[in-house]
């Protein structure tokens, strides 16, 4: 009888909660104590039966013997694991809603040299894709514009917030597509001569733009230094490239084919700039050169077919591991939008095919945090860092594993999305087949 009453009370409470949620449940914040967990810190080993305290959006304490502040909401994590939130290092999340519909695509502005087009401006905080992604433990993503030579400025965002500024996670980088020198595929019907001509022209064009940016930057610096009262003409392209050529802002160079990677290494040489190579699908062919040049890479998708028909079938899986073993700093991306939630599986395949579990975990946590210069906040579980993390019942790379809780900057994220809501509504549909 008593249990019946309990059930009714629980159901009533659940009903109230459901009603009050409306369209989307809100995240909540406060002081949390995550107790009895296996804490995988990434940078400082694993803490067994540990406690992690969240207050003011930060990890205020972490360890095996931690006192719980009064008033903290306690979450018993017995049998569960705490990991830092996973960081996607290259996607279109927030910049597109429905892939096939150009009206919802905001990642490809018109123009060849448009670094001033800022991803952060176009990020839609209320995109349906965001809750779908974050409930999988991917809490942070670099979202990037595409197309042309200089595509725009990418932004690192946390996947919670109501304005782009609330979501901004502290890094922006200019995106460049390195000119391709090879044939682009079977459908490419240009002659070898034409291909060479096009490649030379593209590289000459890049160098011209770069020289202009250098000139602009020098004039700008001189004006500032000598306090001259003239102003440079409005030139947002060059104004955006100026900090890049000065080495103050990171340049993300998309480059994939082996010859192009080599050419890009040469191009970067002597420029004294901050560079990350992205894509790098044939990095395995030139891993030594990449390591020697000390250029870090963001590679992916891992779940991809080889670039050339004759390449060994598992090259995309093995690529990250081969580069890492050669000494290259490797982060992993999905290069996706709606399925950025598969980031742990891209990392998992890389782990299986040579990168190893530990390095693969780093490739989606601390390494991207370091590359983006936000490792004082993200990428590992340490006292004082942002409380951006997730709690799972196992290895997050395994598909069997369920993510139980997600926190982004101390916000306890509702574990629901369009996908879970449709599941809740339709698993046992009412009415069923007969009305």
């Amino acid at each position, binding site marked *: 009888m008593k249990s019946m009453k309990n059930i009714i009370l629980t159901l009533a409470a659940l009903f109230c909660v459901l009603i009050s949620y409306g369209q989307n449940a809100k995240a909540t914040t406060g002081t949390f104590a995550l107790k009895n967990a296996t804490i995988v810190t990434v940078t400082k080993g694993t803490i067994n039966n540990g406690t992690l305290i969240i207050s003011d959006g930060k990890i205020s304490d972490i360890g095996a013997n931690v006192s719980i502040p009064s008033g903290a909401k306690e979450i018993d994590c017995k049998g569960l694991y705490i990991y830092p939130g996973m960081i996607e290092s290259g996607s279109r999340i927030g910049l597109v*809603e*429905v892939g*096939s*519909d150009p009206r919802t695509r905001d990642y490809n502005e018109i123009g060849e040299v448009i670094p001033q087009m800022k991803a952060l401006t176009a990020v839609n905080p209320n995109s*349906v*894709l965001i809750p779908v992604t974050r409930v999988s433990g991917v809490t942070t993503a670099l979202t990037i514009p595409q197309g042309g030579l200089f595509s725009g400025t990418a932004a690192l965002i946390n996947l919670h917030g109501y304005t782009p500024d609330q979501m901004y996670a502290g890094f922006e980088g200019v995106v460049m597509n390195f000119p391709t*020198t*090879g*044939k*682009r*595929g*079977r*459908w*490419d019907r240009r002659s*070898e001569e034409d*291909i060479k001509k096009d490649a030379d022209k593209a590289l000459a064009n890049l160098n011209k733009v770069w020289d202009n940016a250098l000139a602009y930057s020098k004039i700008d610096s001189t004006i500032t230094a000598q306090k001259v009262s003239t102003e440079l003409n409005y030139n947002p392209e060059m104004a955006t490239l100026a900090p890049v050529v000065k080495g103050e802002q990171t340049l993300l160079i998309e480059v*994939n*084919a*082996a*010859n192009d990677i080599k050419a890009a290494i040469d191009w970067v040489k002597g420029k004294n700039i901050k560079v990350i190579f992205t*894509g790098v*699908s*044939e990095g395995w062919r030139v891993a030594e050169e990449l390591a020697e040049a000390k250029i870090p890479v963001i590679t992916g*998708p891992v*779940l*991809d*077919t080889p*670039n*050339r*028909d*004759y*390449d*060994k*079938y598992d090259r995309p899986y093995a690529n990250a591991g081969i580069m890492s073993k050669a000494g290259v700093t490797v982060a992993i991306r999905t*290069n996706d*939008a*709606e*399925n950025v*939630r598969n980031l742990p*599986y891209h990392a*998992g*395949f890389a*782990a*299986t095919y040579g990168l190893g579990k530990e390095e693969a975990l780093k490739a989606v946590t601390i390494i991207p945090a370091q590359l983006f210069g936000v490792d004082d906040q993200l990428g590992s579980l340490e006292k004082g860092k942002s409380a951006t993390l997730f709690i799972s019942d196992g*290895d997050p*790379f*395994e*598909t*069997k*594993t369920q993510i139980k809780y997600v926190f982004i900057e101390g916000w306890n994220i509702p574990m629901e999305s*369009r*996908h*879970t809501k*449709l*599941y809740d509504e*339709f*698993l046992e*549909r009412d009415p*069923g*087949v007969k009305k």
Partner: protein
Amino acid sequence: MKTINKLTLALLMLCVATLATAQKKGDVLIKNGTVLTITNGVLENTDVWIKDGKIAKIGKSIAAPSGAKVIDASGKYVMPGIIDAHSHIALSSVNEATSPVTAEVWTGDALDPLDISIYRALAGGVTISHALHGSANAIGGQSETIKHRFGTVDMEEIRMEGAPRTIKFALGENPTRVHGGGSGIVPRTRMGVEAVFRSSFAEAKQYMQKWDTYKAAKKKKGFKGEAPEYNLRMETLADILRGNIIVHCHSYRADEIYMLMQVFKDYGIKKLVFQHVNEGFKVAPELAEFGAMASVFADWWDYKFEVYYSTAYNAAILAKNGVTTSINSDSEELIRHLYHEAGKTQKYGGLSDEEALRLITINPAKQLGIENRVGSLEVGKDGDVAIFENHPLSIYAVPMFTIVDGVVEFDRENDPADMRIYPDPKETIDVTLHADEEEHRCMDVHDNYLLTDK
């Protein structure tokens, strides 16, 4: 003259017989594996003996017959070859996008045994795929079920001999875009798509009637009439009405899925498999009641508007409602790790290991009408086997051997680093294919890429 005809016929029959036996069958003994039979549970430390291409025995300590290849599967997992019910690999053309109805064409006429995707699928443990026509037309072409035998130039060698006939239908945005949008003919809407089916079947019924009348009249003495005109398109539609062809229908929204079941009920057609069927979960009880099957993506959604209201829990909802469900690839990339795609149903819906594995083995076999031959490890079935390092539903799984009809088609230890059969001395420029290729290829008039996928 008559003798010559008979001789020709005999020669032809000999040729056919030679073709039928040209496909290699092998002998393999797989020792001490953890055998995931799918239909008879998990057997530890068990051997599987494949003799002359068929599973001859499953049991403990089977003695190695002399001359048979022996594979030590200690610590490894042995499962049936994976089956993909929706694929476009090994095809030199996919869409006959010239009319809303092209039932007369057949992808079996466009097989490309040299496609490297066959080998890559093998490297993912996949032994059989359904070489489907594309989704440009409401009634597209007939399709072919292929066995992944690599290293042949003969398209006959990759057919799965004896597999039932199948045909591709398509609903929603693709046929309405290509025909109503592109050519200004019906269908432009989902109403038009239904009308195309109804008028096609009505016409086919009239065609059958004409032939029935003619055949009945012909038997009568003094008959002087002429036979009706033979029409391959109508013959094919008639075979659908007779239940001789399994319909595989590209579909997304619940309303259109429901519509096709109503049309099929009216015409008494029962063999129906929905492909993609992203909103199948919304009408899962109706699908179960009709007996329609569902072949879905693990998690693809949102690439177009008609899949915006999707859920990755689709497969689990369908399976829990009693719909025979499979996970497919529709992609030369995804086909390489269908075991991983099936694993996602454990994240999205908590399916058990066996339930998840059925989605890529016996269930797609049922959807292709070949479940008496493949899809589980049972004595008498085809010797199609995949052997994994680690459990196939683990992210750490690595396919080590893939066996088709007792022939080892993939062996990771002996996998070549370079698949080139011969180098091309003229090729000095790298040919690399990148992610942005998709956008270019869809513009290629020879390849309606966008229509083959999704």
